[in-house]
């Protein structure tokens, strides 16, 4: 059985330096998501599902229609301002009547419409003279998914030369499905007298009236009948044909709130989630703006794990705000769902330590008469106790013997290196009560010397210590570059 530490010799000194038991922090705290908000667009469900990981349960954010995407109008030529381009007419005359269809530049709002005119021939026996015609638009194909809504309007004018009850004009407007076959009646009507411009609106249309991927045309069927002989100038005009298809805009921007996150040396956001389709950005609020910190793209039941170290601003005083935002733009008829298996913030408490990674000791010149002393400030060493438990702490130091570069056996004396702490300071107004300079002393490899101490019940905050280092170089020493390694431990 292996009992020895696995570290190489470089850390042997470390183990020695750590021999005294140390206080060493206040552990780890995990704060699970506490709230769901920020919708619509989107709809949250099952907060509890995100409050534990790997249990097969998840909070879900489902996209909802946010609207706002411009509707599409069909067919291409709807107003006939200049001509009837895109439309074709098929006139079906008979023995006693005729019909003719064409562009009418003078009528319409604004001027310009399509018109089917009717005339009868000599009808001495007063038989019923029936003729018909059909206008057909150019084809259009809808590709925007299942629409949010479908609507249709058309303006029409009936002109029977002021006669009443002597002729009949009727019309039916259809949406023809050229892909699947069949048609849907949009509007229809019949008149036996003149009727000015009137807008007719289709009823009963819905998202299912248009199917994505299919090709359609608008067809206007017109029929006339009369028993009169030798009349002309009857007609029906159409204008402003508008099939309006409004796409869906399925969106989600849902917020997860993790409240009550304690102070700490680090805050790690951990989010595990998957999506049914489109990707979702993971954004974090820093008090001013949202910043993307990851992406959820894995398709459920797979999941992506996003981890992010929160900045102090994102920690936000203990209220961490995370937002999931869908990434697709434009028309979207799919209500994707992002499933959040877990969201938590892991806070590490305790004491952290930082400072300069090196120090420069001035060179000295040996005069053969007296030892020389090189002194230098170590630089600000910073101890942060963000744990909140105020257990007190100590900043201590060790150092390896000074060794001549290239000749590790050439050592300066064991007592040659000392550290004299200065008064503790704080960069942010932390309470200095109970925080004092340590005794300092000779820096050696095995016995840590105290540089700064916080008594129990004190020392919550940020504190700095800048000890003065002094190296006494004996008279009899080989010249060259000497090296040492200082280790600072906050515990």
């Amino acid at each position: 059985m292996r009992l020895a530490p696995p570290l190489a010799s470089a850390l042997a000194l470390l183990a020695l330096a750590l021999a005294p038991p140390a206080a060493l922090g206040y552990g780890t705290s995990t704060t699970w998501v506490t709230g769901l908000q920020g919708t619509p667009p989107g709809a949250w469900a099952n907060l509890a599902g995100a409050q534990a990981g790997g249990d097969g349960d998840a909070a879900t954010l489902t996209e909802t229609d946010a609207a706002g995407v411009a509707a599409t109008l069909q067919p291409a030529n709807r107003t006939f301002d200049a001509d009837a381009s895109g439309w074709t007419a098929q006139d079906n005359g008979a023995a006693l009547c005729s019909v003719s269809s064409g562009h009418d530049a003078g009528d319409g709002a604004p001027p310009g419409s399509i018109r089917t005119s009717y005339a009868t021939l000599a009808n001495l026996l007063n038989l019923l003279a029936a003729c018909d015609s059909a206008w057909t638009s150019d084809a259009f194909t809808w590709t925007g998914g299942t629409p949010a809504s479908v609507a249709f309007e058309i303006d029409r004018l009936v002109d029977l030369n002021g006669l009443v009850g002597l002729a009949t004009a009727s019309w039916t407007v259809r949406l023809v499905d050229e892909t699947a076959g069949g048609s849907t009646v949009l509007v229809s009507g019949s008149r036996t007298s003149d009727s000015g411009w009137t807008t007719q609106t289709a009823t009963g249309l819905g998202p299912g009236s248009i199917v994505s991927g299919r090709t359609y045309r608008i067809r206007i069927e017109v029929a006339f009948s009369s028993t009169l002989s030798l009349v002309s100038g009857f007609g029906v005009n159409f204008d402003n044909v508008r099939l309006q298809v409004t796409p869906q805009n399925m969106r989600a921007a849902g917020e997860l709130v993790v409240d009550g996150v304690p102070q700490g040396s680090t805050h790690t956001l951990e989010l595990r989630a998957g999506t049914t389709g489109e990707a979702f950005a993971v954004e974090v609020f820093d008090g001013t703006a949202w910043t993307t910190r990851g992406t959820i793209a894995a398709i459920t039941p797979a999941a992506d794990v996003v981890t992010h170290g929160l900045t102090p601003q994102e920690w936000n005083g203990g209220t961490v705000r995370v937002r999931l935002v869908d990434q697709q733009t434009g028309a979207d008829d799919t209500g994707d769902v992002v499933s959040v298996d877990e969201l938590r913030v892991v806070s590490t408490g305790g004491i952290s330590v930082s400072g300069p990674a090196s120090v420069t000791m001035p060179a000295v010149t040996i005069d053969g008469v007296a030892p020389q002393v090189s002194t230098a400030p170590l630089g600000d060493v910073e101890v942060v106790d963000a744990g909140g438990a105020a257990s007190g702490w100590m900043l201590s130091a060790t150092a390896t013997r000074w060794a001549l570069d290239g000749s590790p056996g050439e050592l300066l004396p064991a007592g040659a290196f000392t550290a004299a702490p200065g008064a503790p300071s704080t960069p942010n107004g932390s309470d200095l009560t109970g925080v004092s300079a340590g005794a300092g002393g000779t820096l050696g490899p095995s016995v840590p010397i105290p540089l700064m101490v916080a008594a129990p019940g004190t020392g919550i905050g940020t504190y700095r210590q800048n000890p003065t280092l002094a190296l006494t170089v004996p008279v009899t020493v080989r010249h060259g570059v000497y090296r040492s390694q200082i280790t600072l431990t906050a515990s």
Partner: protein
Amino acid sequence: MRRRALAAAALAAAIPAIAAGCGDAVTAAPPERPATGELPARSAPVALVPDAPGDAVVVEARPGGRARIWLRVANGGDRPRALRLGTGPWLRAPAAVEVPPRQSVRVGVDVEVPPSATAGEHPAVVAARAEGDPAAAVSVSYESAVRVTVRVAPRGGR
């Protein structure tokens, strides 16, 4: 040979030593080191804590038995960094762990109690170490540690 010749040149010679950037024995500075005259690079905050509330870890095992404890290595800096781990007797941890910026990483430490261990509490330590500037004549490293108490049950006890 050159070094010996210089050494023989006597006490009046300067000891360029002790100082990074002085003397021919000092190697080139790594890219992140500051230019001469600037403050040295700083080591970002580091902390090692139990992966649970509290400031220490207590684990129970029988002589010859094994257990695992969980710790968190925290990097308070804005860059990823590799932090070395060191353990005392009976403990085994990964040699180093890469920690993303401002995050903590969970680390498992195996506890292996020798068959000859006596019953009672055995203190040990696990430490995370941020190395100083390896090119400097005087590098400064930083450590954070967690106290681990291995509670060994009496042989044959429950």
